């Protein structure tokens, strides 16, 4: 009698231990809540979306979105500065939980990472030397145009010029970074550069590029960007989607847009289709 009680007690303990030792599979959302820390990968050389302020602290719209998301989850925000190329390794290696890094949601990339619904829309615009005589988009067909390599606008521009400017005498020069494109236009190495409208508006405010001006907007599609995380993190992606929905409808995104870029927050929906 006594022996069976002891055995039963051991059995119950063993069962409890087993339950504690094998928790139900925790997903990224659990990890973030459990650790009390949201680690966001943000590209910090893409003002006004991400940059370092005068005190060398991360700042910009992507940074503020990370902080807002963290505060709504009741955790601390940790902004991890990454380069464009480091976004994916930082997610995959588990150094960051989400990339809020103005990343275009191309189908090709979505074969590797998971994208949230769009949280921001950019336009592509040309950047010109202040004394440039280019006023129409089509005049760029004979120009040497600079663009950062691997960006959405690089592939869009390449496809566009092949389709629409078969007799164009211009060429496309690629650079490793956005800043290199601005510098090349400023030096006169290229006759025009292509970048996002927000970045162009931002650099035109700075003193270092006073010899530049904004040119015609590209006729090809808008640049739609989402958050990124690992492809199989459905629970986490669902949460991020809902967050973007809330942040848009309660005006948070609009306010951040007003603060960092100015003007009206663009529409995040694509007319005529469900996401």
């Amino acid at each position, binding site marked *: 009698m006594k022996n069976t009680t002891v055995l039963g007690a051991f059995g119950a303990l063993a069962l409890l231990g087993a339950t504690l030792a094998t928790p139900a599979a925790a997903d990224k959302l659990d990890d973030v809540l459990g650790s009390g820390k949201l680690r966001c990968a943000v590209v910090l050389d893409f003002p006004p979306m991400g940059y370092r302020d005068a005190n060398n602290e991360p700042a910009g719209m992507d940074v503020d979105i990370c902080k807002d998301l963290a505060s709504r989850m009741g955790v601390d925000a940790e902004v991890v500065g990454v380069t*464009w*190329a480091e*976004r*994916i*390794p930082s997610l*995959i*290696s*588990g150094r960051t939980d989400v990339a809020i890094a103005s990343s275009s949601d*191309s189908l*090709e*990339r979505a*074969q*590797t*990472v998971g994208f949230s619904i769009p949280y921001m829309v950019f336009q592509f615009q040309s950047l010109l030397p202040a004394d440039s005589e280019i006023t129409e988009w089509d005049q760029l067909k004979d120009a040497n145009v600079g663009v950062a*390599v*691997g*960006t959405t606008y690089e*592939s869009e521009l390449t496809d566009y010029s092949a389709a629409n400017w078969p007799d164009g005498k211009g060429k496309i*020069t*690629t*650079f*490793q970074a956005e800043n*290199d494109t601005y*510098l*090349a236009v400023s*030096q*006169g*190495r290229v006759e025009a550069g292509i970048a996002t409208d927000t970045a162009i508006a931002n650099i035109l405010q700075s003193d270092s590029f006073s010899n530049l001006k904004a040119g015609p907007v590209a006729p090809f599609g808008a640049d739609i960007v989402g958050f990124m995380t*690992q492809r*199989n993190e459905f629970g986490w992606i669902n949460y991020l989607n809902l967050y973007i929905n809330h942040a848009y409808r309660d005006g948070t995104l609009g306010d951040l847009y007003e603060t960092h870029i100015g003007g009206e927050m663009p529409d995040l929906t694509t007319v005529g289709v469900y996401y």
Partner: protein
Amino acid sequence: MDYQFHWRPVIQALPDLLKASLVTLQVSLIAMALGLMIGLVLYFFRASQLRVLRGFGSTWVEIARNTPSLFQIFVFYWGLGEFGIFLSSYTAVVAALTFNCAGYMAETYRGGFNAVNAGQDKAARTLGMTRFQSMRYVVLPQVLRAIYGPMTNQFTWVILASSLGMLAGLRELSGETQYFNSRTFRTFEFFAATAVIYYLIAKMALLLMALLGRPLFKAERAKS
């Protein structure tokens, strides 16, 4: 790490990567060849009686050896651009690597010449050779033998350093890898493949140098 490797994007991009490897190889070969020649000239400049030539040679060697190659590439590409001199990415990278290579080779030559006993030249001259003949037939072959190892190292180094060319917009192997990486986000796969390609290129370069060097070491092989 929770990640599925997919190699298909890499395989699809392989023709482009190999084409870019040719750019890497081309840039390195040209820079190395020019560097070898200019390096020798710089060595003679530094050994010269003329102060101007000595100063020129030493300044070149000092800057080439004591500043980062990345900085040198930037100077040729963006630095000259500030003065309205626009070298293409290709030219700028070749020029910068040549500049660097010549600086290092000048020092290597110095070591090589020091290794050849001064008596060799004297003996050759006593036998009636002109200064040029003595240099051409007696001293230089021995110098070449002495510097062959370091020269091979230098060649490998130039091949690997040419990857910095992507920062000046050159679409060599690294630049092309970066392009495909940002298109597909298959970061691990592309960089792994590129590392293997670099390894193979470097090994091929070593093999090439070993083959080219065979006549140089004929005498030594005969001895052993």
